[in-house]
């Protein structure tokens, strides 16, 4: 099946009902996408499908035909966000981090704290209490403003 993965056209052969999560990890070798619950609750497997964050454990492979999938490995435009997660304690054990960063990357650029909280409500983190995550996103926003983006 043909789709765009991290900006490149790919053709991957897998069962149409296989979870996108498993296709990415097993057929594409991209293990940055994590499984936390397998039922769409924790958001650890979040990827962007046509720009929208989705739980890849709930997406059958058939649904991504001709779509654009972005995983943590392909998120080149969010370097500031990734750096801010490191310096602000946005990541501890790291298992929720890829999904958290993808969900954060899909937030409006000037998201308020309330918008951030609502936007990340589907991404569970057991380590940080979310404070470090908010600090990281706010810091990345400030940096973006400074360079006029």
């Amino acid at each position, binding site marked *: 099946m043909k789709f765009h993965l991290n900006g490149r056209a790919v053709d991957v052969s897998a069962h149409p009902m296989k979870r996108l999560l498993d296709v990415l990890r097993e057929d594409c070798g991209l293990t940055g996408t994590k499984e936390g619950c397998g039922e769409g*609750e924790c958001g650890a497997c979040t990827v962007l499908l046509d720009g929208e964050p989705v739980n890849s454990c709930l997406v059958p492979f058939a649904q991504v035909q001709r779509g654009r999938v972005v995983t943590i490995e392909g998120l080149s435009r969010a370097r500031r966000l990734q750096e801010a997660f490191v310096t602000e304690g946005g990541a501890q054990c790291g*298992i929720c981090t890829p999904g958290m960063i993808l969900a954060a990357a899909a937030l409006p650029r000037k998201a308020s704290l309330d918008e951030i909280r609502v936007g990340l*409500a589907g991404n569970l*983190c057991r*380590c*940080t209490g979310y*404070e470090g995550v908010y600090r990281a996103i706010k810091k990345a926003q400030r940096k973006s403003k400074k360079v006029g983006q």
Partner: protein
Amino acid sequence: MLHGTTVRSTIPHGELLSIRPAFDTAGFTIVDHRDIPGRNVVALIEDDQPCLAEREIRHAAEPIALMAHPDREKLLDARLDIEYRNRPPQLDPTASTTVFKKLSIEKGDLARGFGQADVVVEGEYRTGHQEQLYIECNGVIAVPEDGGITVYGSLQCPYYVHRALTVLLALPPEKVRVVQTETGGGFGGKEEYPSMIAGHAALLALKARRPVKIVYDRAEDMWATTKRHPSIIRHRTGVTREGRLTAMEIDVLLDGGAYVTLSPVVLSRGAIHATGPYRCENVQIRGRVVMTHSPPNGAFRGFGAPQTQFAAEVHMDRIAEELGLHPVRLREINLLRPGDTTATGQRLGRDCSAADVLREAVRRTDFRRRRRKLAGTDRGLGLALFFHGSGFTGGGELKLASKATLELTEKGVRILVASTEIGQGTRTMHAQIVADALGVPYECVEVADADTGRVPDTGPTVASRTCMIVGKILEDCAREMKSRLGGLSSAEFLARHGPLRITKQYEKPAELAWSDETYRGDAYGAYAWGCDVAEVALDRDTGEVRPTHLTAVIEVGKAIHPTFVAGQIEGGTAQGIGFALLEKVQLKDGAMANSQMTNYAAPTTLDTPPIDAVILEKPYKHGPQGAKGVGEIPIDGPAPAIVNAVRHLGIDIREIPATPEKILESGVRSLKPDGAR
């Protein structure tokens, strides 16, 4: 590589009569207890827990057999028919007569203390199971190699797994190698349980002669693995009219589940912290942990202390209410100060900071005025004062005799420890301590993987010990290395003198003394101290309580890495909010019925209020750079602070989680005029 799976009992108590495959077994590897080459136990404190049940079934989800196959889908369809003889399960800890451990802590003369009291306040407090809910489930890969086995896994304590495997597989230590892989959270949930799953994968791998991977899905992980011990704690306290505690009689009961696991030490830590951080000359603490036919409970951040300090701090607010004293005043009168003694008779040093954390928390939140302002509204304000011992309890560190090694590299130095990085910052913090003591840049320090084939036994990564205890051994190694280098760079030293390795072992500070027989003495090298203030909002129609702000003031000796320390405080506080309000383990046949994230509610971004993490520092003389432990203390405070805030609303809660149903059941009694409260 084969995928492995575990066949588990569906009944809580009974006997196994027969096991028959209900499928074509060609191509499958199937293991039961008869395939175990060594002793059929998960070796830990007591060797009572079988790796695979033989005849007796003691809890639902108990492992009975193992299956492996190259195709995961085929494995999902494979079923074993198991015949049982059911026996009635004992699921009520208060009725259980099988006691795993009993202890008693005595100080002064209880009868005399009650004689001095003007008022006696009694109460019973309960806390429920809590699931660790690390986002990465338990998982291991076992690889048969060179007549032995190597296990790679998501785990906290490589040497616990190592020892368990040598016993289970009857292999010499050098034939077993355990390597920690990047671990997606632990919180105690990967302290003892990985010995079980590693044993299972190893048995399958040895029989199949191929690598085997077992990764639990979320439902199995929550149904089968350890949880926080539920508790029932009774307080009877004598107090003078002025508010001085004269007698504390405390009874602690923990539900251990079906096997001993770590229950005796959870009970010890719980009981030692059961008075809260208060001075009282006459104390009696009785503790027991009993067996029930539910999956064994085990380590979870805080290790007994969140349960007992929940009871102590809610009880303190009830005493204040009884006396018409302000809750801050009651605490100021009784809190432990330098030179005071704890329930075990431990005399506290200058780093005792109960007064400091209380003062700072009250000041920052403008507690008294804010509380008066909120009185009579749908918002409440409460606080909790607490402490937490760093390191193993009592003589534990001496018995562990942890070792750490530094070796010289071309670029600088390499740390070799079995301490694991599970998100709390172990590697960074250890490297900082070593770099500072050696006087080299941080970049010159590397940290070896936690691989038992390479690193010494540094003890488990638990008990708020990885900074204070292991960090200190590393600091001592680095100091000795600095003097051996004599001003040479590492490259110069290697060129002139060859390799240099320094290994040091934990040394007990001379002044620490402890008796396991009497529970008297220095229970911990040092304590961290904390005060939480919670503000909550009540929805009177739904009974829902939402924390709207939480302040956590924690004294940690020295924050080696302030961002990580704040992260420990914020994360532990969020887990404490879940413990207080949201996280309810619903039981069916003694095991978790709601073993899904869908219906076990851990705090999301929308459940977690702004958390103001405040770090205070009063150096401990035997800690690296003065540091004490911070991993666990943040989870001791939120539950009592929140429940005391709910009490401020006029709702009497003595059991958590305080779900909306419980709040409504408790009834919203009319608010008293605030008065002295």
